[in-house]
């Protein structure tokens, strides 16, 4: 059954539906409805909501709780996610599963409270110190906030690592009809034999991240990298829209992709063969979905609410085989479909042919 709900609250409900009973957070706009929702809901389902003294403390509470094998979540917005990076690096090193939600706002610094996508680099390049990656899911609707949040818990448990749900202020604040599909949850996940719960009836467990012996630390890094290769092979996801005959491909994620799809429709109405590839996972990045369009696509337009961050991954995917253009708005400004259409027209409209790659 579908219900009408606000994005931030949907994340909270989805977490509960996925079996998460522990939430540690700290208030920050534009995600505060999420902790507020869980402050009310968690006690009702026998769970724990705890408002920490800081984002730093919250992510370390997540570390402790995750170490007991519990499903646990924290959420914040951009400046708060920066503060959590230390903890995320430790969670990664200790291979502890957890879900971290970033409802992005404009930066740098305190920035603003309007929606943005300027934490793409931070999210997809690890974010904290050390050689690591997090799985990063990029929902673009309230329904996907529900689906991806639930999926995030399964991925975290399956791969023993933090998974980030990367939304933005617009998605957190918007209301849409949503359905919680518990049947999609994975039923066979590895048992958490590593959890520290008291060593009754078994050998003791230790959760640690310090490897003073460089050989052992290299082994640990190799192990993490092997896991990342497996994830790259199995978990890349993208949605394609009107790409089959497209000569101009838009790449966009999250809220921007919703707007860009309107621009694609308008371009089609004008006779411009536009299409869109929307990464649903930002790490692993669905390079092949973009590469597959290069058989017929002659140029790419990357659109983001930042100064061009996913742009790097798009260029790496394209490998120089087509020109990659960029249009972005920063500071919390959401691009209009008409602005994106103008960019499409520049590439493929009035002086269409002159901008195209020679076959």
């Amino acid at each position, binding site marked *: 059954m579908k219900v009408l709900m606000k994005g931030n609250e949907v994340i909270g409900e989805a977490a509960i539906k996925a079996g998460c009973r*522990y939430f*540690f957070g700290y208030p920050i706009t534009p995600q505060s409805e999420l902790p507020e929702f869980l402050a009310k809901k968690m006690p009702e389902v026998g769970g*724990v909501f*705890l408002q*920490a*003294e*800081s984002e*730093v*403390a*919250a992510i*370390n*509470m*997540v*570390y*402790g*709780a*995750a*170490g*007991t094998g*519990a499903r*646990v979540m924290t959420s914040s917005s951009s400046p708060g996610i920066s503060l959590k990076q*230390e*903890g995320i690096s*430790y969670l990664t090193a*200790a291979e502890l599963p957890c879900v971290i939600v970033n409802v992005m706002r404009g930066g740098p610094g305190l920035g603003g409270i309007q929606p943005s996508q300027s934490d793409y680099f931070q999210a997809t390049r690890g974010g904290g110190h050390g050689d690591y990656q997090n799985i990063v899911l990029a929902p673009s609707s309230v329904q996907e906030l529900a689906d991806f949040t639930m999926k995030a818990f399964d991925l975290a448990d399956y791969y023993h690592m933090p998974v980030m749900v990367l939304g933005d202020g617009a998605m957190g604040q918007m209301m849409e009809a949503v359905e919680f599909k518990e049947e999609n949850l994975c039923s066979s996940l590895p048992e958490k034999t590593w959890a*520290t*719960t*008291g*060593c*009754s*009836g078994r050998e*003791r*467990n*230790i*959760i*640690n*991240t*310090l490897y003073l012996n460089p050989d052992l630390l290299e082994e640990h890094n190799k192990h993490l990298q092997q896991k990342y290769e497996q994830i790259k092979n199995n978990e890349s996801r993208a949605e394609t829209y009107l790409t089959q005959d497209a000569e101009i491909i838009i790449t966009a994620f999250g809220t921007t992709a919703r707007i860009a799809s309107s621009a694609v429709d308008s371009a089609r109405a004008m006779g411009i063969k536009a299409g869109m590839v929307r990464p649903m996972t930002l790490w692993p990045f669905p390079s092949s979905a973009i590469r597959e369009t290069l058989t017929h696509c002659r140029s790419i337009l990357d659109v983001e609410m930042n100064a061009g961050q996913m742009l790097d991954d798009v260029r790496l995917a394209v490998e120089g085989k087509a020109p990659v253009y960029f249009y972005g708005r920063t500071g919390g400004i959401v691009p209009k479909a008409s602005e994106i259409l103008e960019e499409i027209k520049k590439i493929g409209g009035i002086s269409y042919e002159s901008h195209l790659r020679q076959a």
Partner: protein
Amino acid sequence: MKVISGKPESLTDKKYHYCPGCMHGVIHRLVAEVIDELGLREETVGVASVGCSVLSHNYFNLDMQEAAHGRAPAVATGIKRVLPDRTVFTYQGDGDLASIGSAEILHAAARGENITVIFVNNSCYGMTGGQMAPTTLPGQLTSTTPLGRDVKKEGYPLRMSEVLATMDATAYIARTSTHNAKHVMKTKKAILNAFKAQQQGQGFSMVEVLSTCPTNWKMKPVEALQWVENNMMKYFPLQEFKKVSGGDQ
């Protein structure tokens, strides 16, 4: 034949990496003895902190998590909130607890988290080479106060036990020392009280244990013990600051 002395079950057989004359080994043993005596080894989760005791999980023969620098009380909070019926303790040094982790310890205490904190105060950062800590005494020489801690520039030491004892939700706060056998036994009693307070669900408990760092103090072990008695104890008085009634302590 009757065994009258042996290693507590809550300690592993691994050889300590601590310097000669350092009291970590003694304090580890006291914690392990208390856990054994209360029969809690298999239902305890310990949290190691960053500093010389970062590797304490090698020595405590029970489930352990190693926390980031200063964050042990937050990590312990996460554990205890999921497993309220388990015993959870942190083992932290003074740089970890009183400096980088000051927010985490204050708020864990303010919330009355039902955990036990073993706070080892040796008045310097031991592992990184003896730099000034928030507990470094006025005038004390360290590698970052080569002319002695100047209170006009570097301020005064933090008395954490006194601070935490003022908080409504703390149940047991004591400062003890390990400079001689009598005080080692008093320290054990305080650690026992702290774990009992947790067992009885009374709230946050902490034992601050004055300890030595002969290597960084550049003293012989016996001189270091004397220095604790003659200098540290003047600034950090030994006292049971808070003891909530109701238990059989």
